[in-house]
């Protein structure tokens, strides 16, 4: 019997070696595999290259991973945010390397890795400093630059539901980078709200077929979700409004 579920997030990331390239899903808070990132911090692998759209916000998640000095290099499209002080500090101190990639080229380069494309000509970035030094070609009257795949050793992603074959469905805009990162990494670890019995997911609606998923770990429903449906009453960080008011 195929069973890709693993019992704990610690086990799910426990073999990530120093120096690994790791894709981390999510766009802002949506789809960020918070529990897996926390497990990676506990695990302590160092000298990592991280692929993510951003470079961390506030002091949790990816920012905490950076603050813990585990990351050598980050490949992303938008590191600078109002609350990206951890990255900002490391970058200004020269303690982290940055490869800045336009978001669509980032997505397509990740997709290319998963789809076995050797390189592709993209019109994005042509004539800008982010295309400096890249091979350029005019095709059918339009200018393009040659972009190469981004592969990873591991992908850490977040989805709504999985079955034991690793089929995944996502929720709303939390889908974002999950499906393409799952295909681009040698080992893909997905945290999900819940693992459902095989055959429960409609095969028409599976977004990530299990072939791309190596490990699944259930982390429980988020507080704005019940039985996979939105129950409302949360702030943008997912804190229930009542609870937050109580705390205040």
């Amino acid at each position, binding site marked *: 019997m195929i069973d890709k579920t693993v019992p704990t997030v610690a086990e799910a990331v426990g073999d990530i070696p120093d120096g690994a390239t790791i894709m981390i899903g999510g*766009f*802002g*808070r*949506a*789809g960020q595999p918070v529990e897996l990132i926390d497990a990676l911090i506990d695990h302590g692998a160092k000298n990592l290259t991280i692929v993510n*759209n951003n470079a961390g916000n506030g002091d949790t998640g990816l920012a905490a991973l950076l603050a813990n000095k585990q990351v050598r290099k980050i490949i992303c*499209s*938008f*590191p*600078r*945010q109002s609350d990206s002080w951890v*990255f*900002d500090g490391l*970058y*200004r101190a020269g303690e982290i390397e*940055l490869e*800045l*990639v*336009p*978001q*669509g*080229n980032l*997505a*397509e380069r*990740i*997709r290319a890795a998963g789809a076995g494309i050797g390189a592709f000509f*993209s*019109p*994005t*970035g*042509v*004539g*800008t*400093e*982010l295309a400096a030094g890249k091979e350029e070609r005019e095709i059918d009257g339009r*200018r393009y630059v040659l972009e190469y795949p981004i592969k990873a050793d591991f992908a850490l992603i977040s989805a709504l539901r999985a079955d034991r074959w690793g089929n995944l469905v*996502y*929720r*709303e*805009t*939390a*889908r*974002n*980078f*999950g*499906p*393409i990162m799952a295909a681009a990494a040698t080992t893909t670890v997905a945290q999900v709200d819940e693992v459902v019995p095989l055959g429960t997911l409609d095969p028409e609606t599976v*977004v990530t077929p299990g072939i791309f998923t190596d490990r699944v770990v259930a982390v429980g429903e*988020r507080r*704005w*979700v019940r039985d996979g449906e*939105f129950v*409302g*009453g*949360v*702030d*943008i*960080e*997912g804190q229930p*409004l009542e609870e937050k008011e109580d705390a205040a």
Partner: protein
Amino acid sequence: MSTRITRDELAKRIADDIPEGAYVNLGIGAPTLVANFLPDDLEIILHTENGLLGMGPAPEPGRIDPDLINAGKQPVTALAGAAYFHHADSFGMMRGGHLDVCVLGAFQVSQNGDLANWSTGAPGAIPAVGGAMDLAIGAKDVYVMTDLLTKQGDSKLVEACTYPLTGVGCVSRVYTDHAIFDVTPDGFAVREAFGDNTLESLAELTGLNLVR
């Protein structure tokens, strides 16, 4: 002398130019205001590059859903008829020329349609580009929404951009607080001058040869 319209007026003016059925991406910042002026009785479909077509307005208070956000990472809603997709599909949609209009902010636009809106190139600044370069080259029409002049009084319409480029020859039209300019092979054409602005006064403000 009335020479400027307000930002809301400008947003409304842009909204008026977007036809029913258009697929539209509104960039982060001022362009987001355009959504407030799209007529309720017209169906205009908003795209957000983090994976949603058919984006609706901000949710009611207390109904924020952290899985449902826009490119600016603000909470939004999804309309009936919406569809979700992953990032490669979303940017394929943009790069493939399927969006009718995108509206972007700008530091500078050159008279051949080059756009600079992602970096001032200031030393020590941390660079961040996001989807700006993809949006700039992706939509059928790229509209820029901006003040004509910087706070220092310099024209944002220029002969050639001095800031780092976002895209080359990509802008179709510039909506400013003084006038609307089309990018043409002969340079900026004044499509509509607001208030007391004239071709001549605009030429003086911008220091450019403008055409009608």
